[in-house]
């Protein structure tokens, strides 16, 4: 078992990185390590965890901002936000079940992976769009801040965006500041059974192109999960046929009219069924966490971001290659895929995603496999050269999470 450092303060993080850079010992950088199974395994003599940097440091509900130390459990933040009827707009997912453990995510880990849930398609955007400020320790063992605690800030290069999604390879975030929004008072969903994925994507596009404020648009290729009653005459959809689900959220008193209007818009795609607030919330949690994908423990999982209209063709290719199971969110722009672990399946994903003009992340795979294949798409040559220089500018000794994203 590698040595695990959990410094209780920023100075401790600086010291840990300074030591690692001085003796050239790579550090596995993580919060609680809940997403360790993502991407490539890191070979490091020591683990540097931000878990002991915990706690909300600033919460101003009237200013819609919150700062927390990187190791603060996401659940702790969400509980505090709930007390003030606020939330993180990106709807960050909880992948504990997908990864087969019960380790809680930290806010720093969530930001470092830039993971967003169904509300990504709304005007609030991705988690990185809500990241107002960071404090981080670079590979130079220096404290660097970027952004701040205000909503609008274009002062200097935006290192928040660079660090979000950099998986601990460019710096160790010690504190993050996020933009918040009020929690919508009510929500409900409309579900429509469709003959195929094309029609499903078209239904989602119709909803997202409507003025009714759709905040979730998922396509469940094998229908609504069993055990989820749908509160409308007509009963649940036919098992096995795809179902498009659209979510509305706002003040409760606004929802009946909007649901009626949206139902009218969707009726050309099939029978539209209403899903009430409680079932809707449960269903969207399962979409958010990719729980509906239900991969077997030894299967691989890919997270693919693609232009929505290209999703049906992508799905067909994956089905033909290895009978992939799929879950689509973001109006079809996010495709979760799972299938038996093999290099051939991965190569099929790489090829199909390239053909569709999208990008993939190998989200979960057995260790030998994820160490052997590219877990992210290759970068253009010119960008790869820049990436190497950016990495060297922030982590000259190469001690922060080496090999996590690319071999």
């Amino acid at each position, binding site marked *: 078992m590698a040595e695990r450092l959990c410094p209780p303060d920023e100075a401790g993080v600086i010291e840990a990185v300074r030591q690692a850079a001085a003796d050239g010992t790579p550090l596995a950088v993580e919060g609680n390590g809940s997403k360790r199974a993502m991407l490539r395994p890191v070979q490091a003599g020591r683990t540097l965890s931000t878990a002991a940097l915990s706690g909300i440091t600033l919460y101003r509900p009237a200013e819609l901002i919150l700062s927390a130390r990187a190791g603060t459990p996401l659940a702790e933040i969400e509980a505090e936000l709930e007390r003030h009827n606020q939330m993180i707009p990106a709807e960050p997912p909880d992948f504990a079940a997908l990864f087969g453990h019960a380790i809680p995510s930290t806010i720093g880990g969530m930001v470092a992976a830039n993971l967003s849930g169904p509300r990504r398609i709304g005007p609030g955007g*991705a988690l990185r769009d809500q990241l107002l400020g960071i404090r981080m320790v670079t590979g130079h063992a*220096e404290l660097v801040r970027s952004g*701040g605690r205000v909503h609008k800030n274009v002062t200097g290069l935006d290192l928040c965006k*660079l660090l979000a999604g950099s998986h601990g390879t460019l710096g160790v975030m010690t504190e993050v500041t996020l933009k918040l929004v009020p929690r919508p008072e009510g929500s409900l969903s409309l579900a429509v059974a469709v003959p195929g994925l094309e029609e499903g994507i078209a239904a989602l596009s119709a909803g997202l*192109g409507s003025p009714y404020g759709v905040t979730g648009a998922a396509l469940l290729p094998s229908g609504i999960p069993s055990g989820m009653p749908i509160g409308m005459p007509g009963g649940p959809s036919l098992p096995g046929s795809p179902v498009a689900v659209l979510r509305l959220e706002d003040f409760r008193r606004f929802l009946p009219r909007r649901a009626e209007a949206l139902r009218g818009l969707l009726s050309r795609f099939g029978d539209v069924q209403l899903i009430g607030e409680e079932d809707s919330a449960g269903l969207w949690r399962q979409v958010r966490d990719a729980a509906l994908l239900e991969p077997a423990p030894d299967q691989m999982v890919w997270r693919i971001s693609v232009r*929505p209209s290209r999703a049906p063709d992508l799905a067909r290719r994956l089905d033909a290659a290895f009978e992939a199971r799929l879950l689509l969110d973001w109006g079809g722009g996010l495709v979760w895929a799972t299938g038996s672990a093999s290099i051939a399946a991965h190569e099929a994903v790489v090829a199909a995603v390239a053909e569709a003009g999208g990008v993939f992340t190998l989200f979960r795979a057995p260790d030998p496999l994820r160490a052997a294949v590219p877990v992210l798409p290759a970068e253009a040559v010119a960008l790869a050269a820049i990436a190497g*220089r*950016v990495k060297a500018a922030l982590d000259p000794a190469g001690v922060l999470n080496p090999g996590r994203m690319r071999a």
Partner: protein
Amino acid sequence: MIALPEPDAAVLARRDVILRDLRTLVPDGPFGPGVIGDAIRLRAYETDGLSAYRQPPLAVVLPTSTGEVAAVLRYCHREKIRVVPRGAGTSLSGGALPLADAVVIGLMRMNRILDVDFADRLAVVEAGVTNLGITQAVAGEGFFYAPDPSSQLACMIGGNVMMNSGGAHCLKYGVTAGNLLGVTFVTMEGEVVRIGGGHLDAAGYDWLGLITGSEGQLGLVTEVTVRILRAAEGARAMLAAFRSNEVAGQAVDAIIGSGIIPVALEFMDRPAIHACEAFANAGYPLDAEAMLIIEVEGDTAEQDDLLGSIAAICNRFDPISLRVAETAEQSIAIWKGRKGAFGAVGRISPDYLCMDGTIPTGELPHVLKRIGEMSDSYGLKVANIFHAGDGNLHPLIMFDANDPESFRKAEAFGADILKLCVEVGGCLTGEHGVGVEKRDLMNVQFTETELRQQRAIKSAFDPDWLLNPAKVFPLEGNPALAPRIPAVVPHG
């Protein structure tokens, strides 16, 4: 006073050769010459929206394709010639101010809309398409491009990307960064790279996010894929006026606390109210110390509901005046004064500087009080316009550019305001960018370590510091650029 780096004498000496070479790369076309080199026509490019600073460039090139942009950059990289990118030239921070030895690459002729896809909710446009031009191209189907800087009639999307432009509706719809899907990026070496595309999230490092707001420090953008959104069913505004800035600030907090996110929440102080009213006759209450314009979206019944709730909240703060628009026309009337604010201030003062700090919204009363004290001590008037929901403060400092002392004072006053913004927990610029204007204040907000780190990232993209140098970073500490005596003076 802003210093510019010493021009490269070797480049100046080769001017004729450089112009000849550039003409082979960007030939003349139906819209005029591809390269501008004569002194008279270069004058048109000597400044931007920050017109107090002027400096004609060595040359201007007006490419019509990504290939031409790449060829010019490849050439300038090889010949070690500095480059200043330019869109419409509306920057309020001097982001497009030329250097005497630099080639300005103007992207205004790259103004085609390449693709509009309503099903995938995106548009692909060239960098020289105006911000409003995008919305106009998609409005027929009920869509719009969300970020709406005041200059949206003229400013170009390429410039919006480079400055990460905002607007009055950011509270709900976010800034430019959140409304982009991809760019065609040209490196200083002249390599063309597609970043992003039709999909929402990057895999790997978020280059799109880093490039957005980079003020031309990292490379040029020639094509942009933007998200387009379906417009709300309708929108309507109300006006609420209060006896003090403090009370107006409390009303803002109470509105946000109620769970309503207005699509716009604009604050004007007494001088701004008076200037706008004199200009636009919008019916603003002249006895108020502070006024809010609040806009909500939805269908008519939802608008009524939300405006009613907000009016009830405002009523708790003893408003001097409360006016809820009943119709779209009344809504336009409420906005009329605010939208004409810059012109209104321009009418009562020969010149003004438009500042752009951001503060924690709760600090507004304190900050306005301090700005009032500074106004007295500098002897210069100031009007304040504030995006109250997101904390972005625009003090308009009135001065006379024909009086160098007045200009000097206005600059010092502006710098003091921005230092105050940082002191209370905010930042130097919310949406206009650092440019040259705030360059020398960067060490107020950042430590030397932080600036060194940002410079190192620029160097990773532009090792020779040829891209828009002398902007964003204080000259001291920049590689390959030495400071020199003041090189530009206020015009007049």
